[in-house]
């Protein structure tokens, strides 16, 4: 049993954090804070990047907690998913993933496609409009998390859906800041 090779691989890929497992609000507070401190105090000492990475991390983990279909049997506020934070070519990226019901895929996919096609000004207008709108039924948050992520992203949103079984798909989203 030796995790050294695995760690070497992560280091070589520039991965700062790789977590697959149960996610809770406490994890956002704890792991999120550690990541923030690490980036703030890193060789670049980049406070702005630290806050950006942290904010995307918060939105992504919140999405996993809310929307992953893999939930803990006892604690309904605990859901399973995966999150990776890394740095490539000078840009931080945050990738999150969780299992969803395939029937939810189409709505989510067309929403994300809509966001990916918007420029920064359009995203800003849309963000403001949605912020003032009433909370919609299926959305446990404000429904503006993805817009927030798209606005902080230096590249168009990248996302993917992979079929898992008859009724489930795995959703992955990547934000590069």
């Amino acid at each position, binding site marked *: 049993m030796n995790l050294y090779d695995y760690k070497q691989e992560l280091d070589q890929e520039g991965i700062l954090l790789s977590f697959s497992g149960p996610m809770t*609000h406490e994890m*956002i*507070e704890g792991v999120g*804070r550690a990541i923030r401190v690490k980036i703030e105090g890193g060789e670049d000492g980049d*406070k*702005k990047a630290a*806050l*950006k990475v*942290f*904010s995307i991390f*918060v*939105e992504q983990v*919140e999405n996993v907690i809310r929307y992953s279909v893999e939930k803990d049997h006892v604690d309904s*506020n605990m859901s399973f998913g995966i999150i990776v934070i890394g740095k490539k070519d000078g840009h931080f990226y945050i990738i999150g993933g969780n299992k969803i019901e395939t029937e939810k895929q189409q709505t989510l996919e067309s929403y994300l496609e809509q966001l990916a096609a918007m420029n920064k000004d359009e995203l*800003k207008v849309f963000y*403001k409009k949605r*912020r*003032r709108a009433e*909370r919609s039924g299926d959305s446990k*948050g*404000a429904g*503006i*998390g993805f*817009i*927030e992520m798209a606005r902080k992203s230096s590249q168009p949103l990248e996302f993917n859906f992979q079929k898992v079984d008859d009724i489930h798909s795995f959703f992955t989203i990547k934000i590069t800041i």
Partner: protein
Amino acid sequence: MQTLEISATKSSPAVHFDAQSNTLSIMGESYPENTAQFYEPVFEWLEEYIDSLQEQHVTFNMELIYFNSSSSKALMDIFDILEEACDEDKKIVLNWIYDEDNDAALEYGEEFAEDIESLTFNLVEKPLAD
């Protein structure tokens, strides 16, 4: 009215609403586990307080280092309540306080300001402590 006092946690801000001195403040970070639940007493207090307001001058200091997207919506809802009060000639000034080196907080403040009309919304830069 009783003072509303909520202590800060890692993910929720300190709230201090004082009806005697007409000074309200929200300070810290806001990404609570349940945003609606956290802000419920804030809205309740605020609505009752505004109903009771007459000629007093109210100062609302808001100093948030970071807030998540669902808190952003809660803040907009707070500003909408204050806007309505100002439309009824209540005298409220909001100070959006941000650290000199926190561009994101300034930008968020500017964006809120763009969506606000009757409420006096000041952007107040706070110099970094040495």
